[in-house]
């Protein structure tokens, strides 16, 4: 039952990063590459029509985590207090940028909300990557000092950074050189994904240029990936043990690789939806690769006083989880139906759809 909910939540989170990921990426592209007003408007629209229904996946993931693994939810949300609240603020800035830009015709008004949308998209992608970095690095659970735990064993609190910026100290902060690398990977991946989305959904004038951008970013992504795997070994020497013990988990890095390699052929790919699929594979593979390396741990403890948090020692009661299974399945079927309807009605390029209320 724990495993079922773990997988369900991972799927919902992945869906969030794939769906909202493209509009984060669109924001980053918008910030750096969109120069003409027409393109800016199209790109905002390609994200603006969908961000709300995409963000629901985050809310759903939060709700399900609360229900299925309350101890984990409590520990992680209070432990990562500051970065989470900052993420909330960024989400607000992004949403109002998207929704309010079209409300007035003044250039200054538009410029402000364009920047708000672009910069918060960039920072959000970075923060989400950093979050993943923190999870795979682990934290000082119970903030143990000299072998004595200052709080209950499953609580902790991280400052934004520690002056050394190193993942190897006893009290690493949220931001250190390791988590920043993972953050950059997230930024590059989502930028590629967003560019694919723009090519797929709009006729913007920069579509051709974006293919070159994707190609170049993909080189950067490949280098970063190799580098991160190496430093991961330094941060956590046992990081890849799970893949040796359970070789079938290697499917996830393979998915990642297929996406990565495929994207090098971006200029040859005829169907834009195939390119979008490849960046989807990179995202999915990347997330599941990280999760699989930890399983069944969901938050490693870097001290040896307190235990890792696992899906077993943080779960709700068996009765609660199995009851939720019943409504959960019904809920997922409904969501699936809505998605089909929504996709049917909004398929094709969005250039000619109404927007701006």
């Amino acid at each position, binding site marked *: 039952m724990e495993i079922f909910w773990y997988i369900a939540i991972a799927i919902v989170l992945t869906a969030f990063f794939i769906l909202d990921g493209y509009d984060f990426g669109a924001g980053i592209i918008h910030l750096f590459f969109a120069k003409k007003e027409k393109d800016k408007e199209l790109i905002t629209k390609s994200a603006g*029509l969908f961000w*709300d*229904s995409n*963000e*629901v996946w*985050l*809310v*759903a993931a*939060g*709700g*399900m985590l*609360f*229900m*299925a693994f*309350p*101890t984990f*939810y*409590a*520990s*992680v*949300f*209070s432990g990562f*207090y*500051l970065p*989470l*609240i900052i993420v909330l*603020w960024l*989400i*607000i800035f992004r*949403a*109002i940028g998207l*929704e309010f830009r079209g409300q007035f015709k003044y250039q200054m008004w538009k410029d402000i909300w364009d920047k708000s949308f672009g910069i918060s998209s960039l920072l959000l992608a970075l923060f989400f990557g950093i979050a993943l970095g923190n999870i795979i690095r682990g934290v000082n659970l119970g*903030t143990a000092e000299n072998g004595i735990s200052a*709080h*209950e064993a499953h*609580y*902790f*609190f991280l400052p934004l950074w520690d002056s050394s910026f190193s993942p190897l100290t006893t009290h690493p902060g949220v931001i250190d050189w390791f988590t920043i690398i993972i953050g950059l990977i997230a930024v590059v991946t989502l930028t590629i994904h967003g560019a694919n989305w723009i090519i797929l959904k709009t006729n913007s004038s920069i579509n051709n240029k974006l293919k070159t951008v994707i190609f170049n970013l993909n080189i950067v992504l490949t280098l970063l990936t190799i580098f991160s795997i190496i430093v991961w070994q330094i941060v956590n020497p046992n990081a890849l043990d799970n893949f040796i013990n359970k070789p079938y988990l290697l499917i996830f890095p393979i998915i990642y690789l297929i996406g990565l390699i495929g994207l090098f052929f971006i200029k040859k790919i005829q169907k834009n939806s195939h390119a979008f699929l490849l960046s989807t594979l990179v995202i999915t593979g990347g997330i599941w690769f990280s999760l699989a390396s930890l399983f069944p741990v969901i938050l490693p403890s870097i001290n040896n006083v307190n235990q890792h948090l696992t899906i077993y020692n943080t779960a*709700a*009661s068996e*009765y*609660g989880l199995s*009851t*939720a299974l019943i*409504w*959960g399945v019904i*809920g*997922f079927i*409904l*969501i699936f139906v*809505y*998605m089909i*309807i*929504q996709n049917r*009605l*909004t398929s094709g390029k969005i250039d000619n*759809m*109404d*927007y701006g*209320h």
Partner: protein
Amino acid sequence: MEDMLFYDRLQFAFTITFHYIFPQLTMGLSLMIVYFKWIYLRTKTEKYNNAAKFFMKIFAINFTMGVVTGIPMEFQFGTNWAKFSELTGGIIGQTLAMEGLFSFFLESSFLALFIFGEKLMGQKLHFLTGFLVFLGSWASGYFILATNAWMQHPVGYEILDNGKFVLENFSALFTNPWLLPAFLHNQMASIVTSAFVVASIGAFYILRNKHSEYGKLFLKTGVIFGLISSVLVAFPTGDWNAKNVVKYQPATFAAMEGIFETEDAGAEIVLIGQPNMVDKKLDNKIAVPNILSFLTYQEWDRQIAGMDQFKKEELPDNIPALYYSYHIMVGLGTIFISVMLLAIFFLWRKKLYTIKPLLWIIMFLVPFPYIANITGWYTAELGRQPYLVYGLLKTSEGVSPTVSSGNTLFTLLGFVALYMLLGLLFLILVGKTINEGPKPKSH
């Protein structure tokens, strides 16, 4: 430790108060939009469709605000109330996760279609998407109230040795005797808000002699919805809630009614008076004998427990605020019914559109349903104190153990600044939409 709790409570109170400004309009207005759209389908008069589309624009801005202020609410259970989340997540996690799965997806999937898809889908389907948005927003209110009802009157749980609450009976969460009255009352109150907003825009158009055809439509629809919902808010739903409070939270009831001493011959109802916590009495009191006993039990001389019957630790910690919140809500409710009765009377005599003073009153009444809704929630939440889960878990036991007060103060200030900006933008945009009016789009 003390000010940590204080800032956590202040932050929660501030962010939920700000959040709740928006959903109350969402829930009520979605119903009225569906109503306009329905009349349009039946009569094929363009006017109704334009009205629906006009309120759709306001709805869309309002909805965005609801979403961006709602996401922080969900996160805050974990960030600021970690201990509470850990102990009760097995129970209220159920209702909150269901809210996400069943209502937010429904609402947000169909909202974009409703806003952008009229040409794409044809009128019948367009009506249907509007209806689904309405359904989603009401379902959302239902699940949130189920969560809150459990905190007010916990049911279907078991407490383990380590203090954790685990779910023992799922269906009990939805048959909670607290839930239905609270839900109906809350929904009626949100219709009050939307009806007053619609009527007020109507009065504004008539007074300014602008879009007056729509002005009349909005005013008429607004006061009709306004009267019906104002009455339903007070009776039976408000009364029904009051009976629940006496039954399940008698100490709260004594405090919110301002009964310091138990009276043997039946309790009086206090209309005006300021709680004096030092002398334990009401100053400047105006009260009518025996009415409260009658309203609560339909018996004139039935005894009602006063605050003297309870230990200090069982009483809410801020009695004056609770008392005022409750009296402001009930007082405003009475005023709403009176004004709406007057408006309906003149509507019936076909004079409503010409009586300037009444139009001015209706126009400026807009903030008050918001105030009534917020003070209503303050009554519920302050009344629940000093508990988070009534009778079982103290508020002080629910905060995050590792988040220091400096960090909470920092985020509280951030929220205040950001929400001020949001509020300002909201007012500018809604003002602009109202000013442009419901003219049909020209393309």
